[in-house]
C-alpha cells in the first residue's frame, strides 16, 4: 500500500495553500506540503528539501544523514565480508 516516491522541492507556488513544485528525476508536479510545514519550518524554507511524495502530498522530509548512515552500514558489511573472505 501507499506508493511513495522521493522528490526535491524546487519552488513554492502558494505559501497559503501550501503548494510547491517537486522534481522527480526531471518530472515536475505540484504537491501539497502541509504535512511538513510548521512554525519552525515555513514553506519558503522547504525549497531544496528532499521529501517523500504520496498522492500529491509531501509526507515527510527525507533525513539525508540517516539515509547515508543506512548505506554506510551496508558498505561496512561489504567491507567486513571482504575482510573475512580474505581470511578464508
Amino acid at each position, binding site marked *: 500500500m501507499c*506508493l511513495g*516516491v522521493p522528490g526535491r522541492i524546487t519552488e513554492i507556488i502558494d505559501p497559503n495553500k501550501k503548494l510547491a513544485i517537486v522534481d522527480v528525476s*526531471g518530472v*515536475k508536479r505540484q504537491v501539497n506540503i502541509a504535512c511538513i510545514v510548521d512554525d519552525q519550518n515555513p514553506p519558503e524554507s522547504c525549497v531544496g528539501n528532499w521529501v517523500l511524495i*504520496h498522492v500529491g502530498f509531501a509526507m515527510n522530509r527525507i533525513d539525508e544523514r540517516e539515509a547515508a548512515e543506512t548505506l554506510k552500514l551496508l558498505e561496512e558489511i561489504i567491507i567486513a565480508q571482504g575482510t573475512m573472505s580474505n581470511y578464508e
Partner: protein
Amino acid sequence: MRDLINDIFVSNFDNPILSQLEDQASFELSNLLQYGDRLAFTTDSYVIDPLFFPGGNIGTLAVNGTINDLAVSGAKPLYLTCSVILEEGLSISNLRKVAQSMQVAAQNAGVQIVTGDTKVVDKGTADKLFINTAGIGVIPTGINISAHNIQPGDVVIVNGELGNHGTAILIARGELALETNIESDCQPLHSLVEKILRVCPQVRAMRDATRGGLATVLNEFAVSSDVGIVIQEQSLPIQKKVRGVCEILGLDPLYLANEGKLLVTVPQDYAEKVILEMQSHPAGRDSCIIGHVTNSHPGIVLLKTIFGSERIVDMLVGSQLPRIC
C-alpha cells in the same frame, strides 16, 4: 464533403494512383515482383488522445505505425490507405495539419497514400478524429521473419529507449498534472530493418513494441516459438524522465507503449554485426542487446533484476493504470 476530401486529402496526398479517384487503387503486380516474392498486408486504427503531442500527431502515428507493421516482416512498405472518421465540429485546420503530417511521413518513408475514405459522425459519437491505415509491402525473397522462428541461443535486441511514446501521451493528456519534456519516439523503421537484413538475412523474429510495450512482444515471442526469454534489467534503455514518471505513478516501463521501437531476435553469431549496423542508423543509435533466448521455461519471459534476482514478466491484464497503493 467532396470539397473537404479534395481540399484536405487529395491535394495533400497527391500522387498519380490516388488522383484517379476510383473506388480502388490499382498497380501492376510486375512492379511489385521486383522487390520480392510475397505481399505483406496490414492495418491499424489510431485513436489517440490528444491528437497532437510532443514528437508527433495522430497522422504521423497512422503512417509510421502501419509502415512499421510492414517493416517488421522485412517488407518494403509501398502503399497505404487512409480512412478517417471525423467527429462533427473537428477543426478543419487541425485536420489539414494531420493530413500534411501524413504526407510528410509518407514521403519520408517513400510510400504513397493511394486510396482512402472519409466519414463524418455526429458530435459526441467519435473522439474528434480516428484514422485507419492499411498498408501493402513486398517481402524480399529469402527473408522469413516470424515470431515462430526463434531458437534457444538467439539474442534479443532493441533499437533504443523504451516507453517514450506512452509517457509522452500520458503527460500530454494533462490529467495527472505532470510536467516534463518527453517526446514520442514515433518514427518509421523500415530503413533500419533494411540495414539489419543486409547484415543478417537470418533474422528470426521482429516486432514493433507498440501498445503493451516490450513485455507484450517478448511474451508473444516466447509463446509463439515455445522458448524462454531472459532479459537483463540493467540493459534496458530507459531515460531518466520516463523512470521518474513510472516511479510517481507506479507504472512498469516494460509495458509502456512505443511507436518507433522494434525488438529483433537474431542468431547469437550475428548479434554484434547487427548491433553495429543498427547503431549506424539514426533510428538505432541506442540499440543494445537486452536478453537472450533459452530452452528452459518455454513460453515464459524472465527479467534478471539489477541485483541478481529474477521475476516473471507476464502479459498485461487490461491496460496499465496509475497506482497509489
